[in-house]
């Protein structure tokens, strides 16, 4: 009985904790006003007396929501959740007269700034957003799904060389790490900015984020290598730029951003670019701002990722080059919208957050995401470019190549980069995607043999990783869970007047189902073998999803049997000890081999 109570308590606590942390749709909305909708049939005098009462009792000033809401009897007034609760509990008379009284949620985007030609949306600060006060203005970071990308990756361990007018460590660069750079214009080691362009660009790459100052940056844990090649006026020589590219490659930069363009083809530049590329450096450049078909140099060189710009609506910026040499598109402003970062005021050097537009502003978004991809473990520059281009939001109709492969998506890019990489982060991503990262799941696991379950999950992950690595087109999630551990928290689920066996079944892996009904720990050799998954595979082979389920089931069962072999080798009729161990081991191996061949065949079939 005590065990039962304990299980119930754990379960309820688990559910409660999960629910408490679950942000439903409602909590995502923020509100600072309350909407009260009086019944349509209520006489005007009655409404007025209710409004007066609200005013005197709670000190609020209700107003018609708009000139159109008089007939709807819809009023709003300033107030928060506490006030809403107070009104609901203390004014029963009011509740009788209203159709609803509820939070007046602010949904999604606020009104666009009216003076601009393009809606530059301002976003609401959500709980998961960084605390930089002007982050809500950065439509360009929201656009590329930076927040979702930050859940797993912030570009740490990667150095981005910013070849530009220099970079000044402004107030909102306080947490951004710098590595030594160089000023090729004035030939000195300090590469401070005297124009404002380079600092803005570096801000897009790695502005200090979550530091309660200013704005955010894309890959804010990446390091910046400031390389000044452009003068205060904004121009620089091909020779200085070529030299700076080699400098970056030699000093360990992983990514180079060049928000600059112009001039003709140059053997010197070409050689420097090839040199850096061969050293494994990803090179990103702005496509140029002539609104012409074909990117300017250096973006049009081979081995350079040329970046076009789009505005806050996702339309091609009016100035952006397009056509040949454009590999991808990123937010760069246009039609009145701007990219917001901190930079210096060229007159006096004071820090300021300003909005700029240009393909110069688009390129560093790509450079930042390239840093994240590299941080996730993809090191080859061609592979990084492939991930960037394959993870984009594709634009269906793009006959003039305004967008290259499509529009940059940081979140999709880091997910794709992590795929095929075995890492701590990847493991957690896998847990999350397969439903294992669920508080209730682990919470109740404590009561139902947590350790072997963890081993089974780990085993499944290893197997899934191997299969994913060898046969990337097969998806196996559901089968893996059923085969390895089941929804094991369900085993601790008890309800009055209901038989518990069905919950035990749901909480069991396939191999344990034979003994789940009986409720003991002795495995049934019929279930704890390769037999059922193999039969299912044969039965479901003609069905696409069914086949994948069966392969997953084989892998999961294999993991489960292997763990049981070591941890609890009790098999009905075989007793315990060596005999059941051999039985379980052979069956685990059978399952795995079968899964491997099935996956191979399935992949071949899918590719045919």
């Amino acid at each position, binding site marked *: 009985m005590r065990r039962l109570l304990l299980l119930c308590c754990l379960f309820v606590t688990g559910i409660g904790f999960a629910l408490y942390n679950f942000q439903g749709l409602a909590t995502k909305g923020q509100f600072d006003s309350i909407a009260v909708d009086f019944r349509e049939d209520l006489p005007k005098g009655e409404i007025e007396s209710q409004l007066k009462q609200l005013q005197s009792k709670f000190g609020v000033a209700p107003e018609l929501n708009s000139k159109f809401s008089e007939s709807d009897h819809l009023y709003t007034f300033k107030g928060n959740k506490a006030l809403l609760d107070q009104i609901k509990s203390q004014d029963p008379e009011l509740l009788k007269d209203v159709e609803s009284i509820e939070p007046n949620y602010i949904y999604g985007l606020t009104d666009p700034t009216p003076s601009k030609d393009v809606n530059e949306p301002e976003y609401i600060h959500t709980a998961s957003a960084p605390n930089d006060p002007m982050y809500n203005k950065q439509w360009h970071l929201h656009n590329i799904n930076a927040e979702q990308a930050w859940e797993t990756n912030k570009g740490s361990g990667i150095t981005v060389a910013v070849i*530009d007018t220099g970079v000044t460590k402004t107030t909102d660069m306080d947490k951004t790490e710098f590595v030594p750079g160089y000023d090729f214009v004035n030939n000195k080691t300090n590469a401070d900015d005297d124009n404002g362009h380079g600092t803005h660009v570096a801000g897009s790459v790695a502005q200090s984020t979550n530091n309660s100052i200013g704005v955010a940056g894309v890959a804010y844990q990446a390091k910046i290598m400031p390389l000044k090649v*452009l003068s205060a006026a904004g121009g620089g020589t*091909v020779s200085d730029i070529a030299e700076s590219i080699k400098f970056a490659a030699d000093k360990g930069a992983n990514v180079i951003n060049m*928000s*600059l363009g112009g001039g003709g083809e140059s053997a010197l530049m070409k050689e420097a670019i090839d040199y850096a590329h061969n050293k494994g450096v990803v090179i990103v450049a702005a496509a140029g*701002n002539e609104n012409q078909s074909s990117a300017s140099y250096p973006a049009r060189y081979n081995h350079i990722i040329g970046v076009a710009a789009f505005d806050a609506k996702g339309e091609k910026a009016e100035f952006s080059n397009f056509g040949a040499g454009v590999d991808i598109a990123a937010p760069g402003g246009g039609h009145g919208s701007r990219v917001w970062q901190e930079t210096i005021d060229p007159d006096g050097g004071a820090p300021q957050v300003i909005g700029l537009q*240009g*393909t*110069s*502003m688009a390129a560093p978004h790509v450079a930042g995401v390239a840093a994240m991809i590299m941080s996730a473990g993809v090191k080859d520059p061609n592979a990084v470019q492939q991930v960037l281009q394959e993870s984009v939001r594709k634009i269906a109709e793009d006959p003039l190549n305004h967008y290259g492969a499509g529009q940059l998506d940081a979140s999709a890019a880091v997910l794709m980069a992590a795929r095929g990489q075995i890492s701590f982060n990847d493991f957690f991503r896998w847990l999350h995607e397969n439903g294992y990262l669920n508080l209730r799941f682990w919470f109740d696991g404590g009561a139902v043999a947590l350790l072997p379950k963890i081993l089974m999950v780990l085993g499944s992950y290893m197997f899934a990783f191997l299969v994913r690595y060898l046969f990337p087109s097969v998806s196996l999630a559901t089968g893996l869970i059923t085969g390895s551990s089941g929804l094991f928290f369900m085993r601790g689920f008890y309800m009055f007047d209901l038989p518990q066996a069905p919950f035990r079944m749901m909480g069991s892996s396939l191999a344990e189902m034979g003994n789940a009904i009986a409720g003991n720990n002795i495995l049934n050799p019929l279930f704890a073998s390769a037999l059922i998954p193999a039969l299912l595979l044969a039965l479901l082979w003609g069905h696409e999803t069914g086949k994948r389920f069966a392969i997953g089931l084989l892998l999961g069962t294999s993991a489960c049997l292997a763990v049981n072999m070591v941890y609890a080798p009790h098999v009905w009729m075989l007793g315990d000890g060596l005999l059941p161990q051999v039985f379980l081991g052979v069956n685990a191996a059978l399952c795995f081999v079968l899964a491997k061949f099935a996956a191979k065949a399935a992949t071949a079939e899918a590719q045919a």
Partner: protein
Amino acid sequence: MITVTGLVEKKDIGMGVWALVSEDGQTYELLSCPKDLRQAGLKVTVSGAIDDQVMTAAAIGPVLAISSFEKLS
């Protein structure tokens, strides 16, 4: 050496840049634009050379290195 007639414009790209838009629609970047020319809408004839050894933050078109100019308005 080329001679271009057109209007001076301040282009809102990056930190802002002075440009000469010729009568046939070609945009030239006036890097290190002389103070006398920094006036949007000014009609001028400029003599100079295209500098193709220079790259710029603005990347709005060929850089026209001015040797002389004449204001027409």
